[in-house]
């Protein structure tokens, strides 16, 4: 995993609450056995017409969006299915962060494991960002701050362990594997109730 470094970007504004993972990537694209090629399918049913042509009025089809690394969305982003294809599609499109007032639990976990930073901001800041969609903001995970134009900073919460892993490029599975002795002793003390002779 590469280390998560500070960056600056304009915002792609999606003023919709409860964006579910079926919108982020529709289920019919989950038949793949690979992680690749999902960026073109991001928000497919909002982004393309019935013939598969990009809808010019959908924000992800604008040249500005393609150069942006931050998605600004409504409350409870990423609700619904556990599909990790959602953060895969978002990062392959080019996003490195999503800003909202809240995230669904499974999506937040999946995003953090794929270097996509879910940034929770207070409601007033959220409204202010929506009112000024053309600004650029700076994201610094080390200091857990967004820097708005003019230098004003907004702190955001991140799980300490996830932050550490992202900043240092640490892979969680490697960390768990190091605890093999603890796992083995837990197993020795807790036999499974599943009747495996079935």
């Amino acid at each position, binding site marked *: 995993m590469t280390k998560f470094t500070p960056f600056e970007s304009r915002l792609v504004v999606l003023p*919709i609450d409860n964006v579910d993972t079926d919108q982020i990537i529709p289920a019919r694209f989950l*038949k793949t056995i690979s992680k690749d090629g999902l960026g073109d399918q991001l928000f497919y049913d909002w982004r393309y017409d019935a013939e598969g042509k990009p809808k010019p009025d959908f924000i992800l089809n604008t040249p500005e969006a393609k150069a942006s690394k931050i998605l600004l969305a409504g*409350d*409870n982003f990423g*609700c619904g299915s556990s599909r990790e294809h959602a953060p895969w599609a978002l990062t392959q499109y080019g996003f490195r962060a999503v800003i909202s007032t809240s995230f669904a639990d499974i999506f937040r976990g*999946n995003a953090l494991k794929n270097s996509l930073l879910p940034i929770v901001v207070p409601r007033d800041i959220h409204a202010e960002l929506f009112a000024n969609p053309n600004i650029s903001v700076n994201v610094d995970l080390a200091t857990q701050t967004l820097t708005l134009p003019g230098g004003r900073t907004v702190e955001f919460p991140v799980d300490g362990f996830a932050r550490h892993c992202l900043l240092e490029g640490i892979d969680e599975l490697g960390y768990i594997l190091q*605890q093999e002795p603890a796992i083995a002793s*837990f197993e020795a003390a807790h036999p499974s109730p599943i009747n495996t002779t079935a």
Partner: protein
Amino acid sequence: MKPRTIIEKIWDNHIVSERSGAPTLLYIDLHLVHEVTSPQAFDGLRARGLKVRRPDLTIATTDHSTPTTPRSLPIVDKVAAAQVARLEASCKEFGIRCFGLSSAQQGIVHVIGPELGLTQPGMTVVCGDSHTATHGAFGALAFGIGTTEVEHVLATQCLLQNRSKTYEVRVDGALKPGITAKDIILALIARIGIGGGTGCVFEYCGSAIRALSMEERMTVCNMSIEAGARAGLVAPDDITYQYASGRPYAPENKAWDATVASWRKLPTDDGAQFDKSITIDAASLEPMITFGTNPGMGIPITAMVPNPGDITDPLERESLAKALRYMDLPPGKPLLGHPVNVVFIGSCTNSRISDLRNAAKILKDRKVHPGVRVMVVPGSQQVKAQAQAEGLDQIFRAAGADWREAGCSMCIAMNGDQLQPGEYSVSTSNRNFEGRQGKGGRTFLASPLTAAASAVTGVVTDVRTLLQ
């Protein structure tokens, strides 16, 4: 000792290690695997040269991209066929038991876990699927995970997790005729919204929950995620033990008695504190139905579709307006009487034998309304066999419904079973998101009783009018 909730007890029983600055390392008792969210995880193991740590605690089946056409036919969709084949190959390679397409135990992952006796009280259960909360009906801590976490569990049988908040959902009183478990959960989600349970695990309790059968408890727990809760559970009781007893993977003989004794210690202690709580009066519930594009957009079936003009928050107002535009529904009008094109009876929410019996009760000696397509999809091969032994398939066929093979089918529309653009369905599944049942399709979520009643009349129908 401080009184604890069942949620805290299960958590405490599964702590492998706790290090400062890191989440708890939690042991997983049962890992269920299906074809859609696992191939990249198996690739991760191959890339690192890792084995599956506990193939004996890992069970796979094919359900999501699996056709519900006769099993003698090949899978037409080559991409889906490759995914199903990949699961079977990976299971062979890593020594995992797989109930594949040709198995008599194949079915929706959340239907077969309980029916095989794999799901047991006090367990931690995970699956790369958000409806894993279904298994909470047994008093298990069961939650959905992403593919990276699937890889973690395959490799280590453990997960790094932070403790969730506890949320007591108390449902007291008796349900009136025609009102079911599905209506309880749709009412809860409508009440607290689809983000209302974020960060929490629900414990469903109260006299109305205690009175539910295991299958009904599964329906309630199944949709915990639709209120944002990662898990939801019901403390085990004699109904639970009676259901689990004698199933193939359940403990036997002396081991059974000892295990039940340990299960009896699981229920929440008197005086235990929850972080949040809500009470619902079961007697006040009506059949519920959704009108919008998330499961929180639900109303009692006799109520009116809400009006965006009544909402002050601009983003919330626009979200409701957007939903009504997608659904092509006028605000302030009833849903009752709205024409229906398709009725889907199935999914991990409502595809068990009791669900099919409920639907058959309405469809018996009646006909599906001309122009309505009705699909009945059993949750598993075992449910299918049981339904056929009871003659339910004959009732469905005689009514003009389509009787299918087991799978997720039109709940997620990955397998060719889908709505056409603009079509309306009454569906017993769990999600009404835009395009969930097929691009441009429009979903009304409801109980099997409501779905079957609407199949007969061709319009959204209050089942109570057919029960008299």
